[in-house]
């Protein structure tokens, strides 16, 4: 039986799809059979980040409406054998998703996989609510910025009321906080909220902290999840995050200003 994990945030542009792709990749690299589903119907992005946009034939909506079966719609990742992608439809809108349809797909995937990662659309409407509805765990992606923190707070409220687990009174959805685009120097300068403030407001356990990094943009544009870039700080931070999801204890990194040597400063070796 797979664990269903939703990657959500409320606010758009904070790194949900990047994180869903990176976490799914990390789980698969650790030997777990993983599928990542794009719930952002109408604004399909996950296929680009995963680099499989040229191989999309059928999508989530096709499966829900019975125009294709699940096997036809699942795309196998070209780098990792036990990683699959279920893309969203670009031509339909979010009303094409039904709760029964989503449930049927998740029940089927649950049998075959170890982890099902649901990449939620932004907002708190139907698409976002369906992405979180069947979740066992949630990764709440937050930027060190006030509006992002407030939207995440709203989403955490919905996780405890608008999910299947909340409605049938089962043990609640396990919530994890993932802070992305963290820039220690700007935090120290007071431009960004610091880690403690965010944790105090959201009061859910931290699963990872991803530093602001050029590697993320590069990875997105190349269609290779940043987890594969093990030289980069962001790639290593996602590996740490996956380890913690698997229950391991890993010390927090990248939350303090990096002490750079005199030579590095002279020759301007930036972050990779």
């Amino acid at each position: 039986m797979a664990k269903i994990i939703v990657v959500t945030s409320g606010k758009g542009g904070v790194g949900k799809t990047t994180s869903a792709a990176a976490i799914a990749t990390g789980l698969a690299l650790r030997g777990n059979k993983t599928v990542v589903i794009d719930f952002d119907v109408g604004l399909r992005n996950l296929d680009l980040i995963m680099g499989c946009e040229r191989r999309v034939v059928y999508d989530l909506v096709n499966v829900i409406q019975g125009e294709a079966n699940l096997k036809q719609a699942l795309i196998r990742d070209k780098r990792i054998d036990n990683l699959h992608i279920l893309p969203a439809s670009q031509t339909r809108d979010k009303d094409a998703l039904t709760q029964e349809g989503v449930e049927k797909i998740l029940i089927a995937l649950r049998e075959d996989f170890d982890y099902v990662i649901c990449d939620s659309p932004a907002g708190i409407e139907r698409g976002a609510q369906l992405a979180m509805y069947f979740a066992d765990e949630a990764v709440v992606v937050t930027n060190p910025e006030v509006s992002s923190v407030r939207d995440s707070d709203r989403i955490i409220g919905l996780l405890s009321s608008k999910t299947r687990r909340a409605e049938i009174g089962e043990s609640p959805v396990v919530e994890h906080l993932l802070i992305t685009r963290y820039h220690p120097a700007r935090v120290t300068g007071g431009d960004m909220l610091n880690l403690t403030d965010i944790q105090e407001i959201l009061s859910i356990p931290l699963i990872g902290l991803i530093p602001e990094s050029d590697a993320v943009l590069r990875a997105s544009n190349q269609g290779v999840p940043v987890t594969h870039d093990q030289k980069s700080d962001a790639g290593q931070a996602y590996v740490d995050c996956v380890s913690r999801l698997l229950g391991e204890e890993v010390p927090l990194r990248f939350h303090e200003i990096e002490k750079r040597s005199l030579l590095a400063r002279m020759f301007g070796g930036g972050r990779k």
Partner: protein
Amino acid sequence: MSLSTDRAPQAFIFKGGMLPMTVMELVSGDPEQIRAQLASKLSQSPAFFQHTPVVLSVEKLDEPHLALERICAVCRGHKLLPVAVRGGGDPVRQSAWALGLGWFPPQESRGRTLESVPPVAEPVAEAASAIEPEPEAEPVHASKVFRGTVRSGQQISASDGDLVIIGAVNAGAEILAAGSVHIYGALRGRALAGIHGDRNASIYCKELHAELLSVAGTYKRLDDIDNRLLGASVEVVLEHDQLCIARLN
């Protein structure tokens, strides 16, 4: 402001209100005995006798024909202002009306709380214990307790009594209570106490960052709050139609 369907200007508005009222529970109907006791009280705590409105309760008395007029005169002579009589039979009611006083029916259920007041007490304590809401006031309701963080977009309300939050109230969240609001955590959202007009309701919080504070409809926004009070443990009460925020220390 009030909403009105007819456009004619209004001379007045009827409003429900609960005012603190001193009840003078008569154990004896003898005006001279009352005069003697009032005289000794007046010397102990003169501040209490400032034309204070009182309700004369005759529930404990078994005298069908009470010398109400003389008792009222004794009270007025000691700067107490009888405004109404509570309890007694039909003759008492008729003479109260004849004297221009209101009449309240006897209240059966709450007699117990009055009996529990020790007969001999400090003057100040006695004055305080005599203050109770109007007889029509709703019975006291249990507090509602919420554990955990109240998050943006969530609303928790206690429409009968007090509301206790054991946790933080985040920005964008709203908590409301007919009575007082107690927050054992940071208050970053909106807190409204006395939503049905109870002016004695108050707000208590461990860390003040509130977007909005309101007691019985009188409110303060974050912008109106003194910066030095931000982050402090405070109590918020309504005084002279203004919200007063005081540190709890």
